[in-house]
């Protein structure tokens, strides 16, 4: 299943890139699984597990760890928001 992943703000800087496209292996079907898969890549990716209060959105809607993923989804990871 192919996804687009976006990273924002401090997390984008820690990861070292703002976006990527990737093919998920079978068995990854929600946000929790996606985080596990990304962290297992090592390098900068364990940041996803250590950032405080990580937030995630699927197709531009706030999501939860058990939000399911579908082919073509746009998934975003970011720290708590600070606008306004």
């Amino acid at each position, binding site marked *: 299943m192919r996804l687009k992943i976006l990273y924002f703000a401090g997390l984008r800087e820690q990861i070292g890139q703002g976006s990527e496209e990737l093919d998920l292996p079978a068995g990854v079907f929600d946000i929790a699984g996606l985080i596990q898969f990304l962290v297992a890549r090592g390098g900068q990716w364990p940041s996803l597990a250590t950032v405080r209060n990580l937030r995630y959105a699927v197709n531009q809607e706030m999501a939860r760890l058990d939000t399911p993923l579908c082919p073509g989804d746009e998934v975003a990871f970011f720290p708590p928001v*600070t606008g306004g």
Partner: protein
Amino acid sequence: MVVRVQETDFDVGTELAALHRNDPQIGALASFVGFVREMNDGAGVSEMTLEHYPGMTEKALAAIVAEARQRWAIVDALLIHRVGRLLPGDQIVLVAVAGSHRGEAFAACQFIMDYLKTRAPFWKREVTADGARWVEAHAADEQAAERWQT
């Protein structure tokens, strides 16, 4: 209902007049303007950059305003949020709510600000004497948003 995300500044008087547009059923117009402060979390701020998530930002803001219109009997609402580089004293955000009565207008205006602060994908990066830093989210903002969940 107007929701805008823009780099350029806005004129509060012009925007409020456009929201009111002489509608004689409007008795109350509550508004809020947020500015860049020169001091934040104990450090002097020389400039700030607002990053956002294009696409999601507009949807999130529209959803917040729509929810305010569902919760309160208001006539119309306006939300403008700037992104990009800003300096101390610059305007960041304008929220305005027009309604028949002041109670609803005030409540909806505060609700929109509280939800925007915790649910719209904006991130502030400040430049201080010690270098650049991402602004940390405040627990007080989360608490301010939670009080509307009753």
